[in-house]
């Protein structure tokens, strides 16, 4: 009635089917992802950030400590409406551009450690070309690390050196 060999064979087949599915799923996603990575995605220029300008209240409007002082305090100046100012986008960072030169950005994914998401973030910060990265100072690298929330990654993965090497290879 209970055939051990049959049960083992069936379990083996189920295991093989499961492992084949694992490999297929992993490979399929890797393949789709690789295809996505080679496509050139147009990157929009960073949108200007609107910040609210705040100013300290005039002396007359600050709340006096004692009731007598509060009575004595007179509000002469009318409240000023808050001013809307357009903050400059991050393109003022050294070497950053508002758009890629000639409208075509370099493939920053050539640098090991930069994936599609980081590339899009760098484009958003105004970095489109390998020569921009090759010219990063320590301060620029720290600025990018702060923006990407990857502390020490630029130096650990040697992005600046990699960019220089890629440029040298391209020039040769």
């Amino acid at each position, binding site marked *: 009635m209970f055939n051990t060999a049959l049960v083992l064979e069936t379990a083996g087949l189920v295991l093989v*089917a*499961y492992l084949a*599915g694992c490999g297929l799923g*992993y490979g399929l*996603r890797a393949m789709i992802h690789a295809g996505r990575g080679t496509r050139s995605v147009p990157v929009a220029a960073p949108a200007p950030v609107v910040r609210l300008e705040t100013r300290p209240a005039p002396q007359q409007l600050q709340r006096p400590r004692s009731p007598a002082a509060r009575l004595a305090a007179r509000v002469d100046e009318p409240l000023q409406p808050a001013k809307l100012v357009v903050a400059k986008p991050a393109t003022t960072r050294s070497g950053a551009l508002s758009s890629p030169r000639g409208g075509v950005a370099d493939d920053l994914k050539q640098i090991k450690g930069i*994936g599609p998401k980081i590339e899009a973030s760098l484009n958003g910060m105004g970095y489109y070309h390998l020569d921009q990265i090759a010219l990063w100072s320590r301060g620029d690298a720290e600025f990018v690390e702060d923006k990407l929330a990857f502390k020490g990654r630029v130096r650990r993965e040697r992005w600046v050196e990699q960019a220089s090497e890629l440029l040298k290879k391209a020039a040769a």
Partner: protein
Amino acid sequence: MDLDSALYLIGFYWPYLLGAASIGLVVGWRSFTPPGA
């Protein structure tokens, strides 16, 4: 396991094998981490 018995088992238990393969597909898909993510 000889070929005949394997074919017999596949023919009989194919829905179970399909289920196992589907689970494997989902597990494999989710275990892939895109570079740079």
